[in-house]
């Protein structure tokens, strides 16, 4: 399962996501509904983690899905699965929003008021795989050195560069670079071994 996530499929079989994206190109609203139900939760989870503010996160998620609806042709199925592409799009939008509005400053002031929505939603196709994948990723990251985990989180969720992370953690730049690279490689090996 995880190997399939981390390596490109060699088969010519069209994935359910790719089939839905093809239907988006025909302006099929029901395909959009299916894609939203399949992936809105993880997209929202990611965006909310980055922005730490529910209302702004919802705006970004809305923006991401409308972008998908209006520009579905931008997704090239030959270059990899759909979900990582969608998550990359969502992360970039969220980090842009974070930088644009200086959310980091505001977040500190508003953190006490804003709690993430944790809403039980019905399981849909693939959610079990997604839950297992999430569990495995967390298990693997817990094995990392806490500062190494923090460095990766600062890079991924806050969009910080190596230098900024080194400053934030008060660690040498080379150490931070090594942590991030080794941490990602260990995560990759762990996911591949799980398959």
């Amino acid at each position, binding site marked *: 399962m995880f190997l399939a996530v981390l390596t490109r499929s060699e088969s010519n079989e069209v994935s359910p996501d790719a089939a839905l994206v093809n239907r988006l190109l025909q*302006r099929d609203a029901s395909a959009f*509904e299916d894609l939203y139900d399949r992936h809105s939760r993880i997209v929202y989870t990611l965006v909310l*983690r980055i922005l730490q503010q529910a209302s702004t996160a919802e705006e970004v998620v809305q923006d991401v899905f409308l972008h998908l609806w209006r520009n579905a042709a931008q997704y090239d199925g030959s270059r990899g*699965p759909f979900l990582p592409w969608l*998550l990359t799009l969502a992360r970039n939008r969220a980090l842009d929003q974070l930088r644009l509005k200086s959310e980091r400053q505001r977040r500190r002031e508003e953190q006490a008021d804003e709690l993430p929505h944790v809403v039980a939603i019905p399981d849909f196709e693939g959610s079990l795989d997604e839950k297992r994948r999430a569990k495995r990723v967390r298990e693997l990251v817990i094995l990392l050195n806490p500062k190494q985990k923090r460095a990766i*989180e600062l890079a991924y969720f806050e969009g910080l560069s*190596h230098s900024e992370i080194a400053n934030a953690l008060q660690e040498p730049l080379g150490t931070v670079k090594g942590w991030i690279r080794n941490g990602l490689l260990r995560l990759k090996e762990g996911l591949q071994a799980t398959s």
Partner: protein
Amino acid sequence: MNNAGQFRDPFRELIEAYALGSLDSEQRVTVAEHLAAGCAECTKALEEARLLVSQLSYLAPEAAPLDTLRGRLLETVRAEAAAAKSNASAICKSAIPLWMWGAVAAVLFFALYNAYEAHSLRETIHETREALTAQMELQQESARRLAWAQREALILTDPRSMKIAMSADAKGMPELQATWHHSMGIVVRGRSFRCRPEIARCSCG
């Protein structure tokens, strides 16, 4: 852990950090230029690194958006889908059916083609008529000249014809000789014309 070949390429070591977006700007630009130059190995590594990096999303505390967001989005999407279908059908279903536009175009084409053909035919007929008229005029002129020549020959050769010499009285006047036939007329020929020698012909019926 990995094959040693991967670590010989300095760019390859940066690909994961590039996918993560954590490279400092100078290194980011360098890697981007390297990828733009078409390094196949790094491009493939980048695709895999992006998949790997996207897995970090699962580190975030699980959350779900409110149903109101779903409702808003679906409302917008359905409206846009309906508008797109409406636009598409408006293009296909105009007030006049497509086949009728085709028929009108075909009729116009044949009318224009026939007009052109008729014009070409008229021009051909006109040119043929002019050529025929010219040919007939030429034929008439030839017949006329032939008749003159035949009559002249008869006047000059008939033993009943009388020759009349007309001497010039003054210098510069041509010498003329007439051959007269009582029924066919007279042929007058001259010499010593200032201009080139010619024979003046006339006949009386």
